[in-house]
């Protein structure tokens, strides 16, 4: 197993409703989807986002498009319209989730390596 940023195997988009943020995380290839299912869990996401997310995180699955949807409550500084943040909608949270680290089987790691993606220190 080798460690990579999630960015190397998935793309993401984040959106808002009130004080709730959601992030769609989509695998670039079907073979990467199990890695996301195993490792991009609500618990790990909660830890990764530190104090940005004050409420629970629920994860929904969309296996036909190799995606998960993370719904994060109390995640937007009290609501888009009152927040003091420069990113009140949390649209940049899609970039934050892609900084999560994931362990990747050697076969997939070799493919990522051929694409010029950088392995991280374990």
């Amino acid at each position, binding site marked *: 197993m080798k460690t990579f940023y999630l960015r190397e195997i998935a793309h*993401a988009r984040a959106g808002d409703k009130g004080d709730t943020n*959601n992030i769609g995380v*989509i695998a670039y290839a079907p073979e990467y989807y199990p890695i996301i299912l195993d490792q991009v869990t609500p618990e790990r996401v909660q830890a990764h986002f*530190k104090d940005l997310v004050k409420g629970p995180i629920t994860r929904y699955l*969309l296996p*036909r498009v190799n995606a998960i949807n993370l719904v994060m409550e109390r995640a937007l500084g009290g609501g888009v319209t*009152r927040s003091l943040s420069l990113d009140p909608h949390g649209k940049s*949270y899609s970039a934050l989730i892609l900084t999560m680290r994931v362990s990747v089987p050697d076969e997939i790691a070799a493919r990522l390596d051929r694409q010029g993606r950088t392995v991280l220190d374990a």
Partner: protein
Amino acid sequence: MADTAGKRTRVLRIGAGASYAGDRVDPATDLAARGSLDYLVYETLAERTIALAQLERLKDPKAGYNELLDDRFYAALPHCRKNGTRIVTNMGAANPRGAAARTAEIIRELALEPMRVGTVLGDDVMEYCLRNRDRLEVMETGVPFASLEGEIVSANAYLGADVIVEALARGADIILTGRVGDCSLFLAPMIHEFGWRMDDWDLLGKGQTGADMVECGANVSGAFFADPGYKDVPDLANLGYPLLEVEADGTIIVTKLEGTGGLINRATCAEQMIYEIHDPANYITPDVVVDFTGVSLEEAGPNRVRITGGRGKPRPERLKVSVGIKQGWIGEGEITYAGLGCVERAKLAEQIVRERLGIGGVDLEELRVDYIGLNSLHGAASLPPAAPPYEVRLRFAGRAKKKRDAVKLVNEVETLVGKGPCSSSLPRKYVREVLAIYSCLIPRAAVRTEVIVEKVGK
């Protein structure tokens, strides 16, 4: 333009000409000119847009609709009239009647052949909400509205496709609404043209799945997607806005015009499908609860994706309402430090301002200090910098009940240029009123809609 309600067998073409109040004008004009469209939809209302428009209307009774209505219609109406393209838009915002009156003037000024202008009223439920403030609860938190401080300035229910279908059935060529579910603007033409039943939930679910793909306009055709080296998008400056090709059985292709920039593929569609939804098996719209979990995305050609497998469940009993409430003021002040030791100087500046706020007795409900260039968006969750930054922008943002406290905060930031650490940029300061939006649910029976259709022109 003959009415074809319920009889269509050929493909229906619906273009998405806008996805927010200030969206670009020319891509929609291009769609109107070259898209062979049956319908052109402009979606221009974010959560807070109507509340802001209502404040404009209070100042000027003729205002309160989309500020770019003139630009959009002067450019697109001649094409739409010539090509038989009908327009559906929520550009009416807080004043659909005013928008319709202005549209009639534009039709006359352009000397177009006669058109029917439809106005949808009834989304404004301010009176109901004021009368029932004691009984309303904030949708997400259950907090009673009665406990929220501040003056209510607007309350608008998300109407469904049914009112637009009514206007289409009465022959309207241009329909101006206030708040309507974003997807419903696109679903209404499908229902009208194919004669879909309003309780055929799976068919409505398929229609809304297509509508969801384009309700954020170019977000499905390459906007907000590019990440160089990972997700490359060609010719973003000439981004083409999307259009739907809808068949009577609810099979939908999303595509864009030849010769435009951008990209439509499975990845752009997947991102857009999940955007701003919660439970993908239960996406609530006024017309149908949509289930996206069975949706398949299939590339049917360059910049063409076929969407199948959407499903639906019965529509909700209650309608969502967005309520705008004035809740104090936000002051923001920023200043940049550069060179060796810039972070240390910014930290000293933060300490000075915090102390000055205490000395001045400035009353803030919340104060936030950001170091732009280090961690302003993600705080403690940010990756650590590889080296000390060459410059850092210090930002203070504070919310206060009274305007004078927000002003005092930004003035303290401003004085840093002469009284704080050395070697800074000029500061900038902003003060604005907070218009907070809260959602609640109200019974359908509380909403009385009205559709007006008038013939305009020679």
